[in-house]
């Protein structure tokens, strides 16, 4: 029996993506916006960051589409990487290891037990003598992966050149062209990495395994969804609040402004972590009181994630609200707003048509910056025990576990490394993207005077 399953956070995440898509569709004819978005993408770091973000979003998106087959719910991502999911060892193993992490007593052929590192169930299983064959095999498969990646990249380049009407001979010019070089190099690295993973991961644990033998690469991939959902959904909960409070407060002033100011001063005066902690604890209690409403573990963990998003969203709106209010207060006296009032445009329409679109860049930039903050916050909240459900794959859980693992001897560093890289990739990309966006949308910082020597 196959039936699609949509968890609440899936719905929230996918509809958030849909909203982003709608936004781009809506601004597609706006030349100024198009030019600005082009600038964002043309900034080397911005373009590269956008590519990486797309990759993350794609993985998370795939992980949000689930089907239930014979009572087992799995996402498309699970199916795509099923070797990773299924290759479960007993306990730790290092990246590219053929043998386990810890010695075990292995019953010998003659009945005499000896103590040694056991062969892994899946890692490097295909090699008869791992110690001798491993290097060559990894190299061979790595080359194949690189080849695969390059092939894909070539196809991509050919397609782009075809669309641009460039001759096939100049196929690799994008890689050398100065303006788009970093973007293409990023694309190339992504292709290469994907190729390598596709060719190596079914045979080795590329990032090792964790305490119960799960492939760390799989955990890292699954964590992407958690991180993104947390960041994106929370931001999307924040937005309406900030907009609904911030823009009218700035525009109307008076008692509305007083009220909103009071609200956000009150909210922001509570230390952030504490507010989140109290709210999360309360929501957690609420969930526990209605535990029976969530039949499966997945639904429960998912509900907890949604609750966390809700908490982060409900506590995180003050910053953007304050910014919006200040910006609208400036815009309120802008002449086009005065003109609109003089034309008899009703206030609501002024808010929607004039103020909202002109503060949108602010909303976008703040949202992307907040997003990265939220992804980072997940790890900390998980440490404080108010983060995502322990059963859910997340970087916070990985880091948290990694603290203990690092204290082992030899240190188990790969979980930490994987979580570190996974997180750094996402947050760095988001931060760089926000930077590029700020440069493109808010070019206040350009044109500083200096002696003309440089």
């Amino acid at each position: 029996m196959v039936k699609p399953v949509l968890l609440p956070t899936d719905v929230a995440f996918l509809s958030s993506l849909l909203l982003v898509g709608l936004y781009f569709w809506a601004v597609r004819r706006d030349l100024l916006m198009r030019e600005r978005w082009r600038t964002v993408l043309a900034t080397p770091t911005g373009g590269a960051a956008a590519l990486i973000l797309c990759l993350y979003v794609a993985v998370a998106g795939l992980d949000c589409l689930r089907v239930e087959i014979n009572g087992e719910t799995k996402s498309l991502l699970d199916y795509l990487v099923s070797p990773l999911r299924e290759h479960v060892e007993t306990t730790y193993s290092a990246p590219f290891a053929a043998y386990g992490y810890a010695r075990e007593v292995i019953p010998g052929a003659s009945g005499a037990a000896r103590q040694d590192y056991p062969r892994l169930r899946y890692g490097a299983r295909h090699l008869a003598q791992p110690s001798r064959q491993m290097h060559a095999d990894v190299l061979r498969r790595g080359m194949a992966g690189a080849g695969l990646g390059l092939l894909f990249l070539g196809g991509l380049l050919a397609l782009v050149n075809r669309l641009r009407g460039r001759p096939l001979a100049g196929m690799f010019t994008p890689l050398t062209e100065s303006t788009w070089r970093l973007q293409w190099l990023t694309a190339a690295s992504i292709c290469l990495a994907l190729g390598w993973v596709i060719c190596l991961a079914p045979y080795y644990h590329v990032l090792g395994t964790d305490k119960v033998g799960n492939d760390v690469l799989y955990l890292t991939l699954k964590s992407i969804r958690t991180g993104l959902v947390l960041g994106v959904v929370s931001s999307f909960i924040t937005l309406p609040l900030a907009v609904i409070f911030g823009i009218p407060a700035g525009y109307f002033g008076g008692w509305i402004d007083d009220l909103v100011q009071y609200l956000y001063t009150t909210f922001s005066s509570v230390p952030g972590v504490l507010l989140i902690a109290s709210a999360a604890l309360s929501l957690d209690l609420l969930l526990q009181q209605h535990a029976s409403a969530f039949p499966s573990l997945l639904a429960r963990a998912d509900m907890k994630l949604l609750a966390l998003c809700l908490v982060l969203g409900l506590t995180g709106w003050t910053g953007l609200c304050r910014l919006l209010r200040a910006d609208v207060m400036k815009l309120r006296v802008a002449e086009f707003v005065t003109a609109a009032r003089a034309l008899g445009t009703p206030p609501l329409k002024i808010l929607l048509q004039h103020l909202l679109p002109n503060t949108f860049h602010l909303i976008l930039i703040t949202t992307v910056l907040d997003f990265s903050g939220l992804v980072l916050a997940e790890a900390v909240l998980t440490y404080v025990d108010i983060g995502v459900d322990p059963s859910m794959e997340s970087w916070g859980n990985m880091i948290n576990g990694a603290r203990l693992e690092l204290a082992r001897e030899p240190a188990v560093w790969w979980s930490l490394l994987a979580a570190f890289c996974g997180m750094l990739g996402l947050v760095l990309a988001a931060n760089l993207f926000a930077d590029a966006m700020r440069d493109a949308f808010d070019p206040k910082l350009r044109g500083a005077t200096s002696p003309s020597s440089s």
Partner: protein
Amino acid sequence: MLIVLSAGQAYGALTEPWNAPYPLGARGSSVLFSTFQERPKHLDPASSYSENEALFTGQVYEPPLQYHFLKRPYTLAPLTAEAVPSPVYLDAQGRMLPADAPDQDIKRAVYRLKIRPGIRFAPHPAFARDAAGRARYHTLTRAEIDHFGALENFPYTGTRELTAADYVYEIARLAHPHLHSPILGVMGRYILGLDVLAKRLRSEDFAEDAYLDLRQFELPGARVIDRYTFEITLAEKYPQFVFWLAMSFFAPVPWEADAFYAQPGMAAHNLSLDWHPVGTGPYRLRENNPNRRMVLVRNPDFHDERYPSEGEASDAARGFLKRAGARLPFIDEVDFMLEREEIPEWNKFLQGYYDSSGVAPDGFDQAIRFNVDGQPELTPVMAARHIVLNVATQPSISYLGFNMLDSVVGGESARARLLRQAIAVAVDIEEMISIFGNGRGVPAQGPLPPGIFGHREGAAGINPVVYEWKDGRAQRRPLTQAQALLREAGYPAGVDPTTGHPLVLYFDATTTGPDMKSLFNWYRKQFAKLGIELVIRTTDYNRFQDKMKKGQAQIFSWGWNADYPDPENFLFLLYGPHSKVSTDGENATNYANPAFDALFRQMRSLPDGAVRQAVIDRLLTLVRYDCPWIWGFHPQAYSLQHAWVGNAKPNTMARNGLKYRSIDPTLRVAQQREWNQPVTRVLLWAGGFAVAGLIPALVGQYRRRRATAL
């Protein structure tokens, strides 16, 4: 960056080694450095029951009896009492009965205890008296209390000789409504008149902080005979009672302490018996800063107690008899540092800053390896540091319980029993021990741990439902058998016929650290082997307790630590009348089987011997078949000691082992210095790096100064 490091360097130059986790002044003297993980909530002997509290109460308070430090199996020895008492049994008419009289005839069991004269309480302001003999500090005003603020600020202290009345007073305190003594339920049944007293006290309305002088209440079960003698009378025969006399619940509490702490205003300064105990033990708690550290110092008035001169055969060889006959305690001061997390604690032990340590799960591979015989031994690195490993199987059990009141997994129906048995076979405890316990555990064949009477080794001792005896050892039955059992139960391949979906079971747990996640995953994997979906319901501890009490949990992880080394203390966990739901007893699974209950009652009062063994065998057969528990394992405690620590023989029953401990501070100082040489060249590298980082900036600046417009 540079500033920080150079500050560290400058400071470090004065006091090496750099990484000492506490002020180094004391390490050369006779101070033991240890840790505590959780701040103790109650140090009042009437309410304190948890292990982390016993760490302190065990050293401060002295019940009449103790476990012999060296002898095995565990033997009771007198502490403040002259001798281990034997009960005198009386019938309804008060006539003496022989020890083997039938239980139902025995209406009174009388224990007479004579304590040694000359034992004194540790100095405390509560005992301070002025020239006229009046207590100095029993009638303080609020302002005076605020002025003193802390115990050490009281200029006068006093002491007093321990009397039998102090023991009797403490027994009455068990009934104190505000102390919520955890053993009131048990003792109320046995000690004559205790429950009556408790009821009476509860009905009296008095403020929480007010002093309640328990001396004015009559308690027939505990009476002072003379200055040094008192008598405890039980309402029925209870052979295990004598073990209770070695627990801190029966340690003496002077009425002066209660009167002192009950003064209004004391609580606001955290001055209460819960934070500042008053006892006769070898140590007194000098500093109680649960935020950082707790310090025990030698009680100057400690009575003359000597190191035992006899023990197990191997004790002499292991050096445990070197100090025989020497006066206790050996160490002047014990510093307990708050270490909430295992890792820093473990690392500090390795660095030599803590004198002993358990083996952190994550440091296990570093410390221990199993030799070819499967026996644990120290890794060469550890052995080179002359660290000593002690292994002791604990008189405890950790198990997964089925709530027998649950409609799915509980009850006496064949369906439920088969389901339980199937799960018990499928959950691979051996794997659990090896993954999560680093092999530190013995798979349980029933509730009784090794070392407790009634436990059987070998083929005779296995649980035939889960294990079979093959190749000379117990082997878990294969998964196919579990699946067959499940099919028989009516869940083919784990599918619940009523829904058509996989059977969903719930595991109730409390939320704790990150390590739990993998454990939960592991549980799920075990159940998934049968096609059953296991949902983990985590709650906070209190709610979990509440759930357990209401019988709403389904499957849960539970454990039991022996109060005393007797099979009764384990088998009563399955005794129907002790059900958690109906009586808030310790029978967490609410298992109730009349046949078992009858046999249990019989076993309870039997002396150790063949008869008792036979009864126990029958009891075990019953519960193995009914399978209310997945039997789990008996954990083994591995503890490590540095070479400079002496007399650290593990004693899993006794809590007062610190007085026997000795240390060699000179060796400690030398080793710490050797092991903690800072890697200073890193600082040079960092400094060089910083300087190198400045160069491009300086070059850039120079270029700008020299630049022309064209």
